[in-house]
Structures are given as structure tokens and as C-alpha cells.
């Protein structure tokens, strides 16, 4: 499905995680952009258990953004957690991350989550 992102924007395709073949794309994108290194086990943990919370954003044939999440019971609430969120530099500021997050949260909400959390790094510069 093609989504138009505002005027003068190139169309971005949003795809839900379908299978193993997409895992290398996701891993290399996240490895490239995030400083925290993740082992393949970590990727598999999130994506195998919650494939419906993993989305990719494609510009033509290149994956330019992705999101990886989980959800589960946390004390008294059913809660979603955004583990990794990446959009490559040239494509930032266009609402791609917003769209990826929105799609994940929609699925979390449909599954019964009452809240969503994430952690963000504070950069001094």
C-alpha cells in the first residue's frame, strides 16, 4: 500500500514484518544507526514473538526506517514497549517515524495495551 506523506514528498511504503528474509535488512539498518549493539538473539526475541509490532518503511527498494516492539503484562497493566526505532538521516523530519510508531501503537491498542513506554538517550549536545 502506498502512502503519500504530504506535498512534494516521495511515496513511502509501509510494510508489516513478514518473515525471516526481512530480518537481515532490519538488523543492518539498526546496527548502522544505533550506538547500542544488539546480538541476533535480541532481534529474534522481539521480532519472532511480536512480528505484528514490527514495521518497515521502504522508499522504492530501500528500507529507510523500522520499528521493533514488544508488549506484555507489567505489574497491573498490559503495556507496550518500543525497543528500537530508526529512520536513516536523509529521510528524517518527514513523519516516517511517526507513522511507524502509530502503526505499532494501533496494534498494541487493539491487543489491549493501556500504555506504551520507551527509553530515550539524553545527549548533552
Amino acid at each position, binding site marked *: 500500500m502506498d502512502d503519500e506523506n504530504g506535498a512534494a514528498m516521495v511515496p513511502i511504503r509501509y510494510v508489516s514484518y513478514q*518473515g*525471516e*528474509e526481512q530480518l537481515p535488512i532490519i538488523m543492518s539498518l539498526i*546496527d548502522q544507526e544505533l550506538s547500542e*549493539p*544488539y*546480538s*541476533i*538473539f*535480541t532481534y*529474534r*526475541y522481539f521480532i*519472532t514473538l511480536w512480528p505484528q509490532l514490527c514495521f518497515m518503511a521502504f522508499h522504492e527498494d530501500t528500507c529507510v526506517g523500522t520499528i521493533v516492539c514488544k508488549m506484555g503484562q507489567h505489574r497491573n497493566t498490559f503495556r507496550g514497549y518500543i525497543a528500537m526505532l530508526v529512520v536513516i538521516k536523509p529521510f528524517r523530519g518527514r513523519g516516517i517515524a511517526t507513522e511507524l510508531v*502509530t502503526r505499532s*501503537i*494501533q496494534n498494541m*491498542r487493539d491487543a489491549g495495551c493501556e500504555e506504551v513506554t520507551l527509553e530515550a538517550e*539524553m545527549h*548533552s549536545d
Partner: protein
Amino acid sequence: MAEALTAGELPADDQKHFAAGDQTVWIDASPFISQVCKDLDVGQLVNGENFSLFEAMSALEIMDPKMDAGMAGSGVITLEDAIDSGKAPVNINIPELVDVMDHLLACEASWHRGHSLAQTVFSCLYLLNLDRTSSNALLYSYCRTVRAVCSMIRTAISTVLSNEEEDLFTLAFGLPLEAEGDGKCLSALHAVDEVVTRKLKGSKGLMAKKQPAEEMEPLQDDPTLEEGYCQAVLCRLRFRKAFYHVVANMNKAQGRGLEMARKHIAVALLELKSVQKSTEFLSRCEVERVSQIEKTTASGRQAVGFDPKVNRRVSAPTPPRSISLLSWEETLNYFIKLLEDLETITSFSTNLSLDELFQTLVDFQKREPDLVPRAFLQLLLTQDGKLFGRDNMCHVLHRTFSLPESVNNEVFHSDNFVSKSGQLTLYLVRVLCTNMSWQHRKLGKLLSEWGVLLQQGDTLFDSLMHKTLGSLEDKELWESVIMGWTAEQTCWISTHLLMLGFQLHLYAPAEYCMIYWYLDHALLTELHYKQLKERKHPTSVELKERKHSTNVETQDAIGSHRRHHILCSLSWMIAALTADRKFSEKSQTIFNTEQERFIQRFDLFQKVPIPQPLSYVHYKKFTSQRNIPIKEQYFWSSQYFMTLQQHLQDLGHCLAKSTTISPFSRLQRTREINQLKHVASRNLIVLKIVDDAEPGDNLMVSFDFPQHPFFAVASVKKL
């Protein structure tokens, strides 16, 4: 499949090398695993029962350069191997020594910034076995002082306990950080300082008058470079000495060392400037040009005697990630900032009132100080559970309330309300010394506790009023003073908490209006109690003075109205723009209604009695249910901005005339005045534009924070 596996599978040679028990043999399982893999479909996994997220996150991929620190450089090395293979020569020449000093400084800065000791300061092979360097006086004394300074800083940070691992790594994992006699390292440093100073004089030919019998051995071989190297070494030694004194004095309790620290900071900054200048001389001698970003020494050469992998087995259970050290330039900038922040701390009076102290802390945080200066500040202010390490909190409260002498100290101190308020106040001081995220988290909890204090007021208060202050006349007056003070603190925490949200980028533009509106409410409540305090203070001599005072602080306190004006003007402005459809941010997202967002934002405040909780209904009344025409709303918003401008003018005049304000406060107030002037003038322009325009969504207004961190500035675009 298992039948295929027999001992015969393994080549005979290999069988000899692998140990096997009585009942066991080693078998090459590769063919077996390949076969099994072929049986799995794409995407199928074998998942161990006990292998979950924690195990996944702790796992490493060997030879992945991001995860496997051993990939950086080559070979595994122990300290003994390193020394034996000549990686840490003691008889290094002067250029090499300078490189070691520089790289060590970079390591130190990297440690302060959050990397482990093992991979930074203790990647220095000399530090791992200091005694063997004793024949090289310069190297030995310098390294010993580094060790002593790091030890002092680590102790300070561990004492205040307001950091997380990412901020600074205090665990030493048995690395030799503490050593006997390090307190005497200065005398060794002083001795080498004298020697090098003499050599410097020698190089300048000033020793010409001396008897020829006194042969001065030069520092290094090349006479043309002698002066340059002497100066380079000297400023590094002197910086190190001064820095040691700074840290030692900052550590002294009750601010006893602040004066001396200040003097040594000035010296340290001067020497650091010389170190900076020496970069040109040192890098000139170097043929290969290393990029600015990568070099960790002034010369650009890699320093001898360091190996980040040497402590691999000593560190945390999981092998360390590879880190990148701060560059030479970043290192110098780090230490300059550190010293300047410490200098600011030394300028604080240790006789501030609570109000003045809170304001000072808020102002200090605007400098965005790193963990080390913040830790020293916290140490100064809260050591031993006393304010400034000296004043019992009950005494502080006695003073703050200006209670008469007739109130029995002992009874006052044992009062539950007093001790609880004292605890909460000291905790607030502690929290205000931490970083913004930590502050935000802790202030939320603290606000609840102050709320409880207010609510429990009745029970705790009875005892205070009837037993502790029972001897006083005008008990009702004291009741309102003390309760008023408690209410005022609660409001202050509320406003500070809300404002921090801007600095942490927690609010979406759609929420600015409700935040400003609630903030205004909290601030007005705070002002109310402040003014009650001013009026009702029965024995305050200051009261008479205040009425006629052009004192800036007074004007400031009474003129907190300026904050009220700007909050009013902003909330009116955004509400009007929203009604006029010129503010494009939707207050509803697809997940939450505006009401839900309101509830989420102010849930905490609903549970605290003061400031009086406001509901969403109140908010809607403010924004959309008033029958005030849009043009009139724009008018009122402009009026508030213009009144603000007048206030700022008056405050500016007071500031100029004031003789009592400290230089630091003056700087902060001046800066804030300028920022607010900018906010007011820019917003007034936008208001004029939207007022002149036709109603409706023909223009789009957005808000940003180019000047002031939490009062937004509007900009407008045609659609």
C-alpha cells in the same frame, strides 16, 4: 543421526589435543548440526526455555567490532606480557612523556563522561604498576597525582549517589586506585616542577651568570626545542598540581575549602591555556598529520604505554564494549568547562536563605554542568544531612520562619512536622543538584510527599501549634506563616516540575496551552502565599526596608508577576489562535482525546491539595466556552505582553542600580530579561499579523524555543 557420530569422526591428531574423561569423548558435531539445520524451515527457531530477553541482551557476537572489544587492536595481553614486550618503557623521552600526560588526561575526561576506569585511566600500563616507574621522576610523580585525584573524585561521586552507570563508572573492579601515601604525591610533583623550572631558565640562558661548574642537564636533546618542551612539561605539571588542590579543597566539608579552591581554579585555568598553546609547538614537531577528531594528544602522536585491552579480564562479567575516548580538543574543552562550573560553585555564599538557594540552584543548572561539578555542589550543600554540611534543618526552618527566640529549640527540633519538613527540604536541595531527567523523576515523587505533608497538616500541626509553639501569642499568625511556607514550597515544586517538561522536550505543541494555563495557576498560587508571607511577617525588620527597597531580589520576588504575565499572554494567545483555526496542532491524536491528555499531564497535581487541582472542565471554560470574540482575545494577549515589557524595563533599571546582587545572579537576571524581551516582542509582531488578517485558517502559526527554554516564540506562515 546419532549413529553417524562416533569417536572415529574426529581426526586422530585432534583427539590427542582435546581432554576427555573416562566416560566421555570429544566428537566433531559440525556435520550433525548442518543436517539438523537443513531440517528446519526458514524462520523456525530452537528456543531454550531459560533463554529470554536478559540472556539475549547479554549475548555477544564474537568478532563483531561493536560488541567484541577484543577486535580493536590485536592480541590478548596481560600486564606482564605487555611490560615484557616493551609496551611500557620507563625510559621514555620528553616528547613521549608529554604524549603520555596528554593521553592520560583524555582518558580521565572520558572516565568522567561515563566510560569505565578499566578502559580509560587504567588502560595506562604505568598506572597499573606505578612502582616500576619510580626511576623516571616526571612520569612517576605525574601518574601518582592522577591516581590520587581520580580516587578523590570517585569518593565524592560515590558519596552523593546521584548518578547512574552511564554517567560515571565508580566501580574499580580491584584496579589499584587507592594507594598508601598518595596524599604525599604533591611533594614529588613539586620536586620535579622545580627541576624543570631550572631547566627552563637554563634554556633561556638566564643561568649565564651562574658558575660554569653547575652543569644544567637539559630536559631533552634538541637545544632549539628545549624551551618549548620545558614549557610544555611545566604547564602540564602545574595544571595537575592545581587540579589536585582544586579537588582536595572542593572535598572539604562545610565549604571550608571554597576560597582556596577558587584560587587554584584560576591557576589551573591559566595552566590549561598554556597547555592549549603548546599544541601548536608540539604538533609542529610531528610529521604525520593525524585528524583533529581522532588525536588524543597535543602532538597528534599515539601515546606509548596504553592498552585498553589489558584489563579485559578484570572488568565486569560481560566483556567490555569498545569505546572511543574524547579527543584532545574535547578533553581540553571538558576540563575548561569543569573548572568554570566549579568556579561558579565557589562563588556561592554559604549563608543563603532557602529561597535564594533554590534560585541559585536553578540558575546554576542553566549552565548544564556535568556530573562532577554537580556532585561537588551536592556534597557542599547536603553533607552529613545538614545544609551546607553545617546547619541542622530544624535550625534552618527556625530561621526561615523567623521564629522568636522564646521558642524552645529542643522542643522545636523534636516536633514531627518540623523534622519532616526539614527532611523534605534537604531532599529537595539534593534533587535540584542532579541532572534534569533525574530531577523530573524525583520531583514528581517529592511533590506527592509535600502534598501528604499538607494534608496531614492537621494532625502534625496540632502538636506543633499547641506544644511546640504553645508559648507564643498570635498562634494563628504563626500557623498561617508556617502553613503558608509549606504551601509555597509545594507550589514552587509544581511550577518547577512543569517547566522542566519543556526543557526535556516532553510536551507536544498541542499541549503548550494547557501547560501554560496550569503553570499560571500554580504560579499565582505561589505568589499568593509569597505575598501573605510578606504582609503577615510580624517581627520582620526587613519588612520596613522592603517597602522602600529598590533591592533587585525584592523586586524579583514581588515581580514574579512577570512570569504570570507571560504565561497569561501565551495561553490566551494560543487559545485564541486555536479558536481562529490558525494554530494547526491538533489537540486530539488518534489515540487520545484532549481530555485524556489533560488527565495524563496533570494526574499528579490532582492528588496534591495546593495548588488547588483544576479539572478539564475548568480548562475548557478557559479555551472555548468563553464568549469573548477572538479579536478581543488577541487584544488581551497583546496587553499582557506589553505589561510584561514594562515590568522588564523596571527590573532592568533595578538591576543596574543594585549593589547587593552577586555577579552570578546579575548575569542570570540580565540574560533572562533579554530572553523575555525577545519573546514578548516577537509574539507581539505575530499577534499584530494575525489580528490584521481575516479570520480562519489562512495563516499557520507554530511555536519554537529559540531564546527562552520554556516560553515559546511564535512564527507565522501563509497557507
